[in-house]
């Protein structure tokens, strides 16, 4: 397990002892997805189909962009009511690469607004202004 944040991008990786075909379904089947993230999911795993996820009181909304079983799935991502990260603002790409009988998962979340803020703490005022813009 590891994560990096750089230039508005978060990369997370994980090694899983199962084949990509098995792991892939955990990104497209609501019952399987919610075993590891969120409480409730409405998924339509076709390009243009919905990727809606309720995590506690936070609602994430997105759209599947690329669905290529069993190796690649991408979807847009955003949070209802969050102006810094509105629905559709960023994209998540998941690449599943076989590693023997196992799978290497590389998840890349691009287009995050926090980017510039990390480099300049004073940027938080700008960030807040964005959050507060109505």
């Amino acid at each position: 397990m590891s994560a990096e944040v750089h230039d508005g991008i978060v990369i997370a990786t994980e090694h899983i002892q199962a084949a990509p075909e098995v792991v892939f379904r955990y990104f497209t089947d609501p019952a399987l997805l919610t075993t590891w993230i969120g409480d409730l999911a409405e998924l339509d795993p076709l390009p243009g189909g919905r990727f809606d996820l309720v995590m506690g009181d936070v609602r994430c909304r997105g759209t599947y962009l690329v669905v290529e079983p069993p190796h690649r799935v991408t979807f847009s991502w955003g949070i209802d009511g969050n102006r810094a990260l509105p629905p559709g603002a960023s994209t998540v790409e998941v690449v599943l690469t076989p590693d023997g009988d196992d799978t290497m998962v590389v998840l890349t979340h691009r287009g995050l607004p926090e980017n510039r803020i990390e480099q300049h703490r004073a940027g938080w005022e700008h960030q807040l202004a964005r959050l507060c813009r109505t």
Partner: protein
Amino acid sequence: MVGRTRSKNETPDAVLRALADPHRRQILRLVQHGELPAGQIAASFTLTQQAVSQHIGVLKSAGLLTERRDGTRRLYSLRQEPLESVRGLLAELWPEALSRLKRAVEEAHPRDSGRDA
């Protein structure tokens, strides 16, 4: 102010929830450059004073507002620290989520024991 412990409500989720309301974002915008009395905050809204007080309460419990008493007045100012937890939200979200994914997949699809890892 220093030494204040992080309340359990001060999670990225709570901060996002607090920020999800336009009135609450407006309150933060009002106090971001300096403290203001509650009455002056309420005067900026068409909401009832009670509704504004409730919004202030949500922001306070998310750690986004600092309250100071000056005689009978309550003065509020922005507290930035919780916003930083939002910044880290996604950086923490995905590694933790993938770790749960690994557990979920491997529990549902156990490999034969005695097999080389």
